[in-house]
């Protein structure tokens, strides 16, 4: 459980536009251990998707560019690896599934074509073996009538089934790390429950580590082991799921947890975090959350807090004396 698979240190990713440099990810550190599920939560624009694209080497470049920091897979720095090396890693070692399963499947090829293509690129199997392996994969993700499905097109499948196909494709070469970018956001709750169940099952069976990127704290609480909370391009708090939900330290994490309406208890009015997320790069001095924080001190406007702590880290002066 404690072997480090992926280590991100001081990663900074910026987008260079006509309006200048926009720091989408502004110095983040985290590690992913073998077999664990790490949750990466935050609201829109906090940089969680850019983080995953940086790891995969899939940043649209230009305008995106990794301007600092390192990404270590095992002991190799892949932050500026060559495209040919990334191709070997992608799929075999690190795989990814996306939010919208309709746009990540090609509408003019059958499920079988696309699934077999993914396997063929990474292994040398005969035609017959390919067919068998595809059927086996579709069965593994709980899809019925796997054989017929191979001949169908993406539009003939429902959203939940498409996401299962995406998972099958990502798992086809037994990756060590699976990055899931909002995999259930486009799905209904009953289907979401099926997919989350499947991901936890695969994690247990194959021991694949999962980075779960989501905005839904419910999803994190139910399936992750550890969680990192992102705000405006930085990690503001990190720890085990139990620690974060029971003893949140950063005011942003607290606010986020409290502003969710409770399914089992009715309150008169909800807690709110005032204001809205700042534009990346608009705050250059002090703590990024200071303008919205209710515990703001003079120090917060002057100095930038560091992410400190042992098991439970937070980026807030309130907990750093």
């Amino acid at each position: 459980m404690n072997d480090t698979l992926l280590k991100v240190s001081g990663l900074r990713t910026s987008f260079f536009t006509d309006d200048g440099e926009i720091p989408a990810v502004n110095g983040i550190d985290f590690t992913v251990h073998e077999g664990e599920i790490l949750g990466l939560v935050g609201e829109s624009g906090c940089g969680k998707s850019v983080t995953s694209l940086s790891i995969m080497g899939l940043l649209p470049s230009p305008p995106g560019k990794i301007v600092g920091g390192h990404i270590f897979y095992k002991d190799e720095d892949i932050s500026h690896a060559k495209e040919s090396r990334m191709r070997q890693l992608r799929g075999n070692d690190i795989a990814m599934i996306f939010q919208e399963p309709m746009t990540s499947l090609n509408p003019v090829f059958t499920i079988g074509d696309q699934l077999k293509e993914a396997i063929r690129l990474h292994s040398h199997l005969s035609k017959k073996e390919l067919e068998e392996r595809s059927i086996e994969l579709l069965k593994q993700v709980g899809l019925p009538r796997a054989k017929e499905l191979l001949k169908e097109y993406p539009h003939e499948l429902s959203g939940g089934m498409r996401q299962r196909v995406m998972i099958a494709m990502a798992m086809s070469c037994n990756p060590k790390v699976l990055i899931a970018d909002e995999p259930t956001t486009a799905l209904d709750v009953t289907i979401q429950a099926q997919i989350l169940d499947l991901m936890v099952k695969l994690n247990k069976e194959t021991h694949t580590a999962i980075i779960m990127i989501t905005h839904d704290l419910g999803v994190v609480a139910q399936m992750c082991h550890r969680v990192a909370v992102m705000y405006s391009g930085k990690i503001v708090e990190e720890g085990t799921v139990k620690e974060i939900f029971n003893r949140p330290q950063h005011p942003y994490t607290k606010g986020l947890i409290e502003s969710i309406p409770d399914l089992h208890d009715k309150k008169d009015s909800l807690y709110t975090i005032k204001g809205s997320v700042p534009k990346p790069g608009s705050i250059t001095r002090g703590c990024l959350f200071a303008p919205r924080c209710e515990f703001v001190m003079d120090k917060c406007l002057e100095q930038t807090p560091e992410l400190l702590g042992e098991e439970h880290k937070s980026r807030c002066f309130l907990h750093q004396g």
Partner: protein
Amino acid sequence: MNEALLQVENLKKYYPIKGGKFGKVSETVRAVDGVSFSVREGETLGIVGESGCGKSTTGRMIMRLIEPTEGKIIFQNRNIMELSKREMRKARKDIQMIFQDPFASLNPRHTVGHIIEEPMIVHRMGDKKERQKRVEELLELVGLNAYHARRYPHQFSGGQRQRIGIARALAVRPKVIIADEPVSALDVSVQSQVLNLLKDLQKQFHLTYIFIAHDLSVVRHISDRVGVMYLGKIVELSECEALYNHPQHPYTKALLSAVPVPDPDVKTDRIILQGDVPSPAHPPAGCAFHDRCPAAMDICSKEMPMLKTLEDGRKISCHLY
């Protein structure tokens, strides 16, 4: 509180699918298939369900933005189905709507002031000066500033745009507001701000809401009574507390158990439903839910259950009761 302000009886919307030679109607999609409910003055009726269950169609039919195939809508003792187009336009002064996507529901070429003023022009309310004063009042009421009237929608964030949508709906002093997924496009921290605003406005102006959403926790937070829809029908309708604490219909139970709870210490016994929602063009015979229902009996595949009223006033359509 007990007077029914709006009553919907056996509302239906069928869409023909034309195919074959001469555009013959080959099938019909039963988007909404016999929905009945009543809304009391000053209450919030929540309507939940998964995508494609007909909740939005129901909301739009009450406004007659979609013309119902069959059924009655009685508002203030008048069947608004019998109104002419011109009379209907007048009636819409009392029933207003808030839409889901704050990016699509505001005209990008109009200033915010004009957007909010427009319904008042349509309904010939006041002169120009009075209207402009009202626009400023409304903007401040929803938590924006009077000077925002001169700006354009693209200058606002998602949460602020939704506030503009709310101000526009309030402009003509309606009695009923139909809110169709008003917070689903927003981040949690902004979502709670908008939910609180909607609750405050309801108290202040004694508004009646029909709140349509897929997020069960949000609906619980805001609603007095909740109706659960599945494949164009209401399967359970009850007081909010009773529905959430003691769900009776197997679908409601499954739906509630599927919601990921943002608390790692709560381990819910999830009821994972098999398969997907069937197509409304080919609903299963008998009870539409029977092929996914964990408690299905023989009768369920043969006879369609009627909406019954239980002792506690709960309405349910299931053969178990």
